[in-house]
C-alpha cells in the first residue's frame, strides 16, 4: 500500500495553560473529502492552522506522500499545495479583490531591474479564476470591503482554489450563508474532489458533509475521539460522539490511548 497523500502524526499544541490539541493523528487520501466536526474549542481550527502553516505544533509531524514536511510558514504550506479558507476569510478589507487573491505570491515584472507588481496580469488572472469557478464579484479592482459577505467568501474560495491546490481546508464554509450560497459551496467541493483535490471541511452542519463528504472525524477537547465513513454512520451516532466524546464502537475494540 502506498503512503497516503497526507498524514499528521501525534500533533500536540498548547496555548499557555490551554491544551488545544493532544496527540492528534489524521490520514487523508488524494481526492477525498473529510468532515472535521466537534464542539466549540475542540481544537479543529488549531489543527487545520497547523496544517496550513499558520501555527507551529509543539510536537508531532506532518507527512506529504510519505515524506516529512516542515511548514514553518504559511507560504511553505501553500507552496506544497495546501490552501486554507479561514473562518473569517482572512481578507484585508482595504485591498482589492486581486490584491487579496495574490497576497504573498504576487506576479511581478522587471522594469529597469526593479521588481514591479504586474497589476494587469494579476487582474486578468483573477477574473479567469472567478470565471472558472462560476463565481461572481462586481469587479476584481474593488476593495474587498465593498463586497457582500457571500462575495467575500467567493474571493476566499478563488484564492484557495486558483493556485493548483492539492488540499483545500475550509473552516466553517457554510456558516452564515443562505441556501443558494451553500449549494454553491457544495458544488465547489464536489468540483475540487472530481479534480483530485482533497478537501477538509470543518463544519457544524453535518448535512453538508453527508452531502459531499467521504469521512467524518470527531474531535473533543483536543482529542480525536472517532472516525467514520459517511455511509457507515448517521446523525445520532455522530452527535453522541460530539457530546460525550466517546466512540461507542471503539469501546468494544479499544485503542491504546487511555490519556
Amino acid at each position, binding site marked *: 500500500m502506498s503512503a497516503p497523500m497526507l498524514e499528521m502524526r501525534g500533533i500536540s499544541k498548547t496555548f499557555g495553560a490551554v491544551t488545544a490539541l493532544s496527540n492528534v493523528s489524521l490520514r487523508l487520501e488524494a481526492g477525498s473529502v473529510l468532515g472535521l466536526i466537534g464542539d466549540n474549542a475542540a481544537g479543529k481550527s488549531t489543527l487545520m492552522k497547523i496544517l496550513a502553516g499558520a501555527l507551529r505544533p509543539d510536537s508531532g509531524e506532518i507527512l506529504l506522500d510519505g515524506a516529512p514536511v516542515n511548514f514553518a510558514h504559511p507560504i511553505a504550506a501553500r507552496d506544497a499545495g495546501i490552501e486554507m479558507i479561514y473562518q473569517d476569510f482572512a481578507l484585508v478589507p482595504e485591498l482589492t479583490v486581486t490584491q487579496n487573491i495574490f497576497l504573498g505570491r504576487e506576479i511581478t515584472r522587471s522594469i529597469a531591474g526593479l521588481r514591479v507588481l504586474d497589476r494587469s496580469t494579476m487582474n486578468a488572472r483573477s477574473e479567469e479564476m472567478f470565471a472558472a469557478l462560476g463565481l461572481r464579484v462586481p469587479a476584481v479592482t474593488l476593495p474587498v470591503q465593498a463586497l457582500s459577505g457571500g*462575495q467575500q467568501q467567493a474571493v476566499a474560495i478563488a484564492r484557495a482554489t486558483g493556485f493548483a491546490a492539492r488540499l483545500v481546508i475550509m473552516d466553517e464554509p457554510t456558516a452564515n450563508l443562505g441556501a443558494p450560497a451553500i449549494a454553491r459551496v457544495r458544488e465547489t467541493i464536489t468540483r475540487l474532489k472530481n479534480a483530485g483535490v482533497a478537501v477538509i471541511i470543518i463544519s457544524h452542519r453535518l448535512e453538508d458533509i453527508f452531502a459531499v463528504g467521504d469521512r467524518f472525524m470527531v474531535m473533543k477537547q483536543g482529542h480525536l475521539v472517532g472516525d467514520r465513513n459517511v455511509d457507515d454512520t448517521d446523525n445520532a451516532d455522530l452527535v453522541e460522539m460530539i457530546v460525550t466524546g466517546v466512540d461507542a464502537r471503539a469501546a468494544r475494540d479499544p485503542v491504546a490511548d487511555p490519556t
Partner: protein
Amino acid sequence: MTHAKTTPTSRAAAPFLDMRKAAVFLVRYGMFIALALWMLAMSLTSEHFLTSTNLLNVARQAAPIVIIGVGMTFVMATAGIDLSVGSLVALVSVLTAAWLVAGLPPLLVIAMVILVGVMLGALNGAIITLGVPAFVVTLAALTSFRGVGFVISEGRAVPISDPIFAFIGRGDVLGINTPLIIAAVVVVVGWFVLNRTRFGLYALATGGREEAARVMGLAITKIKIAVYAITGGLAALAGVVISARLSNGSPNAGMMLELEVIAAVVLGGTSLFGGRATIAGTVVGALLINFVRNGLNLHGVNPYWVQVVTGVILVLAVLMNTVLNRRAEAWARANPEDDREVRK
C-alpha cells in the same frame, strides 16, 4: 446606454447614486478642494500671496514636512504612528553640526546622520513589534532623542558654514530650491514603492488586517521595523535640510514637527487605522497646512492664533478621516446587490 438593462428601479436609483458618489467624492478629495479654495481666497485678498517668491517660499517650508510625511504615510499604512520624528530632527541637527566642527567631510556626515536616523527608527520599530504600542514607544523616543541632542550640544546652537550645506539649504538647480528637489525625489520614490512594489502592498495589508497578512505569510515584523527605519532615515534627511537652511545645528530644531507631519498625512486622507494610504494626499496636506499659515501671516493674524488654527485643522482632519469617511464608505456600499458586471 443600453435600454434593455434599464429597469424601473435602477432608473429611480440613478440620481440617488449620483448624490452618493458626490458625497464620497467630497470626503475623499475634500482636502484637494479645500487647498484650491484657500489659495483662490488668498490670491483674491492678498497681493503678495500669488507671487512666485511667496509660493516657492511656502513650498520650501513644506519640504521637510513632505519628506518626513512620506515615511509617516508608510508608518500609518501599517496602522502605526511615529511621534519621535521632530526630536530626531533635533538630534540629527546637533550631530551634523558637531561632526562638521570635528572636521568630518560633509557628505560623510550626511551619510552618518541618515544611518543614525535609520537605526533609531529601526529600534523604535523593533520595540513596537515586541508588543509595546507605537504611541508609547515613539513618545518615549520623542523625549529621549531631543534630550540626547541637548546633552551633546549642551543646549547651544552651533553654526554650519559648509558650502555643501549652503547648497542643500538655500541653493537651487535651474531656479528650483534644493529642498524642493529633495522633497520631490522622496515623493516620487515613495509613491512608487507604496503603489507599485510588494513592500508597499505588504505595509497596507499589515495595517488593514494584521491577522490576515500574517496567515498569508507576510513577514509582519520585518515590514513594521522597515517602515519605522525608513521614517527615521527620512526624518534625518529632513534634519539635514532644516539645519542647512537655518545654517546651524540646534537641539531646538524640529520642535512640534511631528504634529505637523501627522496632520499633513491625516489631512491627505491616509487612514489613522491603517490599510489606506496616499502619498499625493500627504503632499497636499503638507501644502495646505503651510499655505493656511502663510495666508494668515500675510493678513497679519497673531502667530499664536495661527497655532490654534493649525490645531483646529488637525482635529477637523481626524474627524474627516474617521467618522465622515466611514459614513461615506458605508453609504457608498449601502446597496451591495447592485447588479454590476465584472469590469473588463
